């Protein structure tokens, strides 16, 4: 029977409204409870990566501003750390609730400034941000029960430098445990995504947080370096590239500063021949295309058992053809924009190198918008461990496919990297999951799932993926004098 419906089921545009967020034409640094200009008056622009539209002009912190912010945090530390834990808890609960209330606004803002799909900011970033504050709020008056001694003490002023891939979530991962344990904070957001941190300053204002407890310094790498090196900082927490992480480790060497680093990765997603295939395909897709692959724990290496390689690749390619790339504010967008021109050129260069080294490149038919920074979902096959695309972190929507024959070989290949942040295992055989998970040198192992996060679940790497854990009871240790 012929149907009357001959056209395809085309989803009409379903854009989330921009009007829920009011972005000011300019923002200052947030120091000691006030927005102020940079000491040297410098500013920089933040743009929307999907359109290259300038969103706002932001004061750019320099060394003098870092010093001012650290002094404000030091001054605030005395009272903040002396506050009963139950009172600190209530501030954090307030923050959690205000974030929940303003989550739509913050989701749209984050999508505008970062380029990631509204689906992700709405369903992943913002709920996790609120949950993280809610979780650590509850710790503030229970620290003596956390297993770090009878009366664990805060460290003092925490200098925190965060990346652009999950701007507000990384802020939450840094600020929530720091405040719960009684530290005060100077935080530098990434230069391409300063807005949500500045809106967070306003959340702090609404919550009535005492002045100087949280200071936000938008700026570039020089401001981050000055913060890390500042002699009156007691704790350094950094999330970002392994290269910068090593530089920071050298900077704090010989000092008494406590250091935690959450750095790069080249996660292996291992698919055995008895995997739940349809769910594995979803896990592979979420593993490398969530947030355009700009995720430190991305499953950027697919290790597939040779016996099912063809079948799996066929399914994967078919699935990639259904991904919807485009306007990040459209609720149906799966793949948004790359965060910056710089990141786009890095991805492009690595992908070109992959082709030059003989790997086979494939992308689904996919029209890229003409303005903004975009990169089509990409697969590389014919990849070996020797290829650059199998070794270097690309931090983009690019998956390298390698094969293995036995579980031993899978583990050996998975571990054959200086990184050790994440890994995935797909098999219906329970004992194999446990055996392989045991042997993987990675801080987070997802079996029959991928890219799951929770405030109660410690996150962090082995080897050059950094040290220290964020999240859970473990996450308190980084901010306590133990």
């Amino acid at each position: 029977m012929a149907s009357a419906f001959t056209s395809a089921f085309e989803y009409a545009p379903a854009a989330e409204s921009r009007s829920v967020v009011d972005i000011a034409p300019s923002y200052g640094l947030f120091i000691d409870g006030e927005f102020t200009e940079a000491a040297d008056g410098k500013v920089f622009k933040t743009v929307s990566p999907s359109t290259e539209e300038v969103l706002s002009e932001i004061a750019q912190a320099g060394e003098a501003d870092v010093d001012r912010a650290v002094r404000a945090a030091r001054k605030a530390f005395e009272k903040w750390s002396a506050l009963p834990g139950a009172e600190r808890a209530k501030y954090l609960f307030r923050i959690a609730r205000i974030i929940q209330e303003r989550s739509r606004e913050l989701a749209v803002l984050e999508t505008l400034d970062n380029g990631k799909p509204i689906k992700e900011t709405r369903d992943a970033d913002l709920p996790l941000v609120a949950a993280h504050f809610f979780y650590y709020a509850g710790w503030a008056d229970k620290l003596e029960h956390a297993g770090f001694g009878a009366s664990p003490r805060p460290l003092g002023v925490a200098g925190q430098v965060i990346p652009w891939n999950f701007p507000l979530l990384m802020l939450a991962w840094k600020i929530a445990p720091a405040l719960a344990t009684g530290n005060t904070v100077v935080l530098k957001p990434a230069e391409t995504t300063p807005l949500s941190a500045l809106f967070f300053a306003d959340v702090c204002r609404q919550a009535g947080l005492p002045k100087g407890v949280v200071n936000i310094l938008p700026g570039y790498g020089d401001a981050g370096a000055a913060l890390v090196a500042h002699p009156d900082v007691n704790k350094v927490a950094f999330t970002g590239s392994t290269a910068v992480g090593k530089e920071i480790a050298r900077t704090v060497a010989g000092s008494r500063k406590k250091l935690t680093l959450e750095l790069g990765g080249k996660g292996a997603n291992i698919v055995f021949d008895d995997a739940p295939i349809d769910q594995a395909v979803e896990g592979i897709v979420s593993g490398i295309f969530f947030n355009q692959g700009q995720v430190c724990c991305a499953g950027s290496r697919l290790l597939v058992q040779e016996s099912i390689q063809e079948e799996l690749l066929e399914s994967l390619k078919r699935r990639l053809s259904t991904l919807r790339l485009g306007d990040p504010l459209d609720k149906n967008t799966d793949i948004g924009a790359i965060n910056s021109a710089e990141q786009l050129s890095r991805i492009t260069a690595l992908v070109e190198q992959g082709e030059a080294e003989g790997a086979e490149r494939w992308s689904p038919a996919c029209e890229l918008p003409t303005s903004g920074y975009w990169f089509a979902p990409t697969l590389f096959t014919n990849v070996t461990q020797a290829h650059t695309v199998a070794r270097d972190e690309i931090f983009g929507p690019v998956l390298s496919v390698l094969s293995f024959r036995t579980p031993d070989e899978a583990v050996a290949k998975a571990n054959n990297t200086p990184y050790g942040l994440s890994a995935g295992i797909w098999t219906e055989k329970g004992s194999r999951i446990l055996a392989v998970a045991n042997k993987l040198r990675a801080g987070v192992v997802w079996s029959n799932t991928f890219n799951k996060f929770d405030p109660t679940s410690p996150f962090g790497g082995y080897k050059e993926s950094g040290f220290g854990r964020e999240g859970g009871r473990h996450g308190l240790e980084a901010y306590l004098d133990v």
Partner: protein
Amino acid sequence: MPTNAPSAARTLSDVTSSDSTLRRFLHGLPGVDAVGLEARAAALGTRSIKATAKAYAIDLAISMVDLTTLEGADTPGKVRALGAKAVRPDPTDRTAPSTAAVCVYPDMVAVAKEAVAGSGVKVASVATAFPAGRAALDVKLADVRDAVGAGADEIDMVIDRGAFLAGRYMKVYDEIVAVKEASGAARLKVIFETGELSTYDNIRRASWLGMLAGADFIKTSTGKVAVNATPANTLLMLEAVRDFRAQTGVQVGVKPAGGIRTSKDAIKFLVLVNETAGEDWLDNHWFRFGASSLLNDLLMQRQKLATGRYSGPDYVTVD
């Protein structure tokens, strides 16, 4: 279309050569991770279908409804009214499409046939001692022949869940083959009663079993148990028909039934079809909704889209 269909078909005919080969095949199908499956179904449920897409989806959904009455209290009057509604769902708007079929018990087939005569709307009949299926095979086949003899275009049979759960797959297979034969030219929908099969692995196995035995459609439920069609079990069955076609070249339809009451729900199912099996299945020859109250909600939403006002139950027909 895959080029290796003939050899795949040969391989698959070997599968049903004995109870043990069939079991080995069904148990060798990839497992299903429940959390992952449900998460995927939920994620597709967040698609935002607006404006023109919504109008398209609502009309498509109406055209896919198997408008159903399966009550002990069914009468010729009730069935006639249902037939009239299937042919012209919205008496005030001739642009509203007809439903795909009406679905009734075998003794109502003749009445239904008359009610939809000349409209293109099919008559589907449940058979095989629906809904429990607990009768001897010859009784079930007589039930089928009765319905076909009265003019049914489609037969909705139930599988023997007891035999399936006891691992007697060959018995289930043979029964479907026999019913298929008895159905003649009528298209055969095979109902698994997924709520009774309970696990997703069972639903995948039942799907392949049904398709191997010659089902034209695989259908979730009778509508008579606690859990009927869900996004997750329908997604799983859509994966099965997709994979079956890829392996054999044979396309099989899918019919979620029971529990789909709102336009919003129906559109979510259409998204599942679109993004899993693909647009080849976005047609009432290949996808149906087994439902009764769904139609009125689709019509109210349709009126809302047309007029900009929210409609109410007084503006759609109640039968």
